[in-house]
């Protein structure tokens, strides 16, 4: 085909739109039907397009096929006619086939309502994230398994149980009542945050950047901002964080798609508009009496990272932000970044002492950090740590970066 990336791209962007609209139309009890119809729609595309060519407007084609499949499903499936259509008839006063409205407006509404339905407190956060990846992001089960660092069977079981639970609890695909919003929003934000990171860091696949995914996470976050009830300081801080990270899209990859590390990036490629937008949202997010959220702290760190110049003020600020971040939300990545900031603010010797305590010995970044800290202090140890990192690294990109560091030390 002329455009080899077209179907995967469309799958990412359209699968989740179609499935959200179908779920909304069918109700949460029939998420699997919605999933099946969405999947069959793409199967049809893969069967037909290679022979007849890609249609002029592939998205419209997909929507039309999805609508027809849904209609056929209503008309033909006996089980459906008996069980769901009865309920639907009651709800929609006599209309037999629900309107499958794939307008931009209904897609966004359905997606927003769907994300709140999926992030319902009756299922675990882990299951919420899994379902969100499947339904809102169109992830394959293998990709979700990779994101969770587990296997397909476990994910299948987890998603199945989560759907079962949503069905049992008769969760509605609607916007939650105002009193429930703060609690529900917490898990929505976690999901959006992870969704962005999945695209930005993308460890599961060797594709360095899944911009689509990041933009989709930003779009969903922006949708929350567009709604008065969900336009909270945390949401704005999260969007600020995403803007700052996204500003480096262009600079993060070379022409071969290989990742360029922060310190080697050409900052003239950083997107000034996104940086300015991030700064604006961060400003909007501050000033409330509420405690600073992890998103405020991370966004402020990301802001400092848009200042490429090394100043004592920059690294001291970043160190203190990580100190606070780790107290409210520990992660190995934050622990490693904090130690790097410590080396910049308090010197390598102090950072080595702290790094040795972390003992994140199954994490290749841990050994990359130790290698970096020992560089210029003890070359033998620096090389030994980088070699350990090389053994642990999973992606080609990471291995290449580590080899480059080793070459510099041992040429």
């Amino acid at each position: 085909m002329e455009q080899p990336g077209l179907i995967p791209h469309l799958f990412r962007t359209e699968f989740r739109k179609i499935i959200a609209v179908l779920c909304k139309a069918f109700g949460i009890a029939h998420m699997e039907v919605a999933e099946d119809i969405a999947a069959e729609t793409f199967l049809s595309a893969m069967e037909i397009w290679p022979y007849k060519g890609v249609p002029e407007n592939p998205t419209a084609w997909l929507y039309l096929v999805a609508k027809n499949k849904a209609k056929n499903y209503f008309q033909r499936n006996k089980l459906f006619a008996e069980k769901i259509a009865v309920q639907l008839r009651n709800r929609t006063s006599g209309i037999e086939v629900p309107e499958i409205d794939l307008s931009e407006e209904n897609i966004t509404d359905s997606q927003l309502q769907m994300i709140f339905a999926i992030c319902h407190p009756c299922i675990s956060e882990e299951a919420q994230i899994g379902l969100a990846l499947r339904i809102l992001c169109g992830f394959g089960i293998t990709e979700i398994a990779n994101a969770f660092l587990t296997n397909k069977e476990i994910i299948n079981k987890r998603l199945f149980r989560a759907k079962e639970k949503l069905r049992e609890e008769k969760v509605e695909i609607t916007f939650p009542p105002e009193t429930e919003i703060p609690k529900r929003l917490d898990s929505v934000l976690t999901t959006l945050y992870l969704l962005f990171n999945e695209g930005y860091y993308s460890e599961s696949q060797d594709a360095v950047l899944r911009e689509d995914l990041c933009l989709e996470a930003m779009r969903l976050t922006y949708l929350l901002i567009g709604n008065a009830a969900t336009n909270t300081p945390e949401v704005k801080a999260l969007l600020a964080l995403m803007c700052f990270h996204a500003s480096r899209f262009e600079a993060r990859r070379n022409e071969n798609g290989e990742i360029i590390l922060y310190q080697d990036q050409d900052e003239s490629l950083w997107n000034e508009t996104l940086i300015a937008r991030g700064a604006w949202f961060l400003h909007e997010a501050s000033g409330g009496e509420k405690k600073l959220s992890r998103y405020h702290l991370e966004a402020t760190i990301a802001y400092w990272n848009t200042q490429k110049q090394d100043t004592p003020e920059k690294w001291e600020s970043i160190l203190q932000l990580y100190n606070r971040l780790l107290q409210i939300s520990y992660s190995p990545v934050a622990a490693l970044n904090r130690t790097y900031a410590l080396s910049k603010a308090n010197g390598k010797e102090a950072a080595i002492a702290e790094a040795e305590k972390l003992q994140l010995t199954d994490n290749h970044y841990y050994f990359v950090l130790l290698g970096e800290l020992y560089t210029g202090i003890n070359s033998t140890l620096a090389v030994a740590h980088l070699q350990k990192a090389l053994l642990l690294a999973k992606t080609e990109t990471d291995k290449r970066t580590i080899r480059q560091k080793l070459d510099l030390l041992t040429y």
Partner: protein
Amino acid sequence: MEEFMLIFRHEDGNKVASPEQIQVWMKQTMDWIGGIAAQNKFVEGNGLPFADSRVVHHNNVVTNGPFGEIKETIGGYIIVKAASIEEAVEFAKGSPVLQGDGNTVEVRKVERH
């Protein structure tokens, strides 16, 4: 993993430090706590300001502060996760509070029910 409370006792809570000293001490404290948090061993912590404090005595007699009457005052606490009292003691040894002569860090196991 057990939880231990590290209680900071100051010999003289009224001792006045210069703004520069306070700045240095604050950074040291934040870096120390950050280092514990970076090991995922931090649970919670709080400073206990001396200003506007009261002591309630037998027969509900209320006096200002703990100053004057008690030699040591409690300046704050943190709760850490540790496998043993020995590990908790190692954390305590890094506390900048101990730079003050006569200050102590008391390490106590927290019973969670």
